């Protein structure tokens, strides 16, 4: 895989076809339509309809044994009226904010080193690949692999004990909020590195040289040239990280050991206790929040214009 194969979010509209005689126009219009039809069909059946089903069921009534078709706002009233729900939403937002801050700084730094500090083209591509490969392996295995590292008798605790830095094992390492944030960073930092690296590779190197020639220091070059020109990459990475952390439930369940909650986990729990309408109302609220956050990101950074 070369750089050309890395996923780049290109929001710019594809170029329209050149002007063709009117006679062939009609026939050619049909071809792209048929080419796009399978994609449209699958997204309608497996995305649009299911989201519709979610919305409809969120107004249904239910008791301990069945779901009763109805049109009522009880589920929403329960979601928005419960203090537990509010706390869970706030906790999810807190995780999102922390993970976003950590992954954007880390992702930016790693992408910067890859794009500007590694001079050989081959080394650059090999290192980029090395940073991408874990994305293609199992997330659950990657989470499990922290257990021997962070556990009570894990590598980190035993090393610190041996060095005499601590007297008894640190308990907060595994099954805690710390472990959750660490796992998120481990899983999702790549989603920051890849788009930021892609936009950085498009920055004209002469701009940096010009800045240096004009007496700007390294830090000034970063803040006035590299960061503004990498904005669209940072925005795309942020969209990925925000949506994945907001909707996650596996990481919180595995890494917090049941000590922390997230909206996704709350939905998963409602599903397993067969409270489908409640889960759906929660899902609709979550989706609304996620979409608002993305709209906010797109408002700050216009990806369309910058790509």
């Amino acid at each position: 895989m070369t750089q050309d194969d890395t996923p780049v979010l290109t929001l710019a509209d594809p170029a329209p076809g050149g002007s063709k005689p009117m006679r062939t126009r009609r026939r050619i219009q049909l071809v792209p339509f048929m080419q796009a039809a399978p994609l449209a069909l699958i997204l309608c059946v497996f995305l649009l309809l299911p989201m519709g089903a979610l919305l409809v069921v969120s107004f249904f009534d239910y008791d301990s044994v069945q779901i009763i078709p109805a049109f009522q706002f009880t589920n929403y009233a329960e979601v928005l009226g419960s203090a537990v729900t509010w706390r869970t939403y706030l906790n999810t937002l807190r995780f999102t904010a922390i993970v976003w801050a950590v992954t954007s700084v880390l992702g930016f730094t790693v992408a910067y080193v890859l794009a500007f500090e590694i001079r050989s083209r081959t080394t650059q591509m090999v290192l980029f690949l090395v940073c991408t490969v874990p994305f293609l392996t199992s997330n659950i295995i990657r989470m499990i692999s922290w257990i021997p590292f962070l556990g009570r008798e894990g590598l980190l605790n035993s090393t610190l004990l041996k060095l005499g830095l601590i007297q008894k094992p640190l308990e907060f390492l595994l099954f805690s909020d710390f472990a959750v944030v660490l796992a998120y960073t481990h899983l999702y930092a790549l989603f920051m590195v890849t788009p930021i690296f892609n936009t950085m590779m498009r920055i004209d190197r002469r701009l940096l040289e010009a800045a240096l020639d004009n007496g700007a220091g390294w830090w000034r070059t970063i803040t006035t040239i590299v960061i503004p020109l990498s904005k669209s990459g940072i925005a795309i990475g942020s969209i990925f990280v925000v949506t994945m952390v907001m909707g996650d439930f596996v990481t919180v369940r595995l890494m917090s050991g049941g000590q922390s909650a997230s909206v996704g986990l709350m939905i998963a729990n409602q599903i397993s206790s067969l409270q489908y309408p409640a889960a759906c109302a929660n899902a609709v609220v979550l989706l609304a929040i996620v979409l608002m956050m993305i709209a906010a990101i797109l408002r700050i950074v216009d990806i369309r214009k910058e790509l």
Partner: protein
Amino acid sequence: MTATFRRAVLLSVLGLFILFLYGPTLTILVLSFQGPDGGLTFPMNGFSVHWFGRLFHTQAVGDFGGSLIRSFSLATMVMVSTVVISLAAGMAFRRRFWGSGPLFTLTVASLIIPSILVSLGVGLLFSALGLDPNWYSSAFGAQLTWTLPFGLLIMFAVFNRFNRAWEEAARDQGATPWQSFQHVVLPIIMPSVIGIALFGFTLSYDEFARTLLTSGSDNTLPLEIFGMTTSVTTPVLYALGTLTTVFSFIVILVSLAIVRVLAAKRAI
């Protein structure tokens, strides 16, 4: 801060990041070779392949063989569909057509709607229609909503850099649209098509949240592994982790090898 010192710091950040990415996985790789009396953490209590053997005892793992076969078949189905559908759609998106704007928005939405919601929605839809969810029907569709956007975005990246002069030359020489696609476009974009295949396969093979509520009664491998995390407290879990990670690496290396061979062929 001198420039050399800064460079050393930055390079070590990259080094530590790579260690952070791979360190834990390497740890479980080593620990999966624990002796028969070894536990979930260091020290190593002997060295054996005992836990790999345990994988094939049904009481240790629910249904390892069955779930592996299901995951492999599903990943292959998803891979083929993702390549064909996103390649076709990628060709279509090279020009504006009726509905191209909304379809593009829908594709991006597919990427950002949390997986658990897709899973729940597809599950509800199937029960509303009176259909039984199965890994080859509902889970297959739910996974496509995750792999297709990636496939299409890769196609966009490819066609943004694609030189149309090649196609025009083919057309001028009298090639039909299909001939120009088959003999000109496809060979040029082949490395990216392999990339889409790789994404489609591995994303499906490791997918958890979208399969959870859509796979019906038979588990795929990630679901089986997730089930094990709560019940299994022996290194057999690591053995399974090592095995699936090694498998993913083989798939990645094979794809890279194919891309290299294609590049070498073109250079001649």
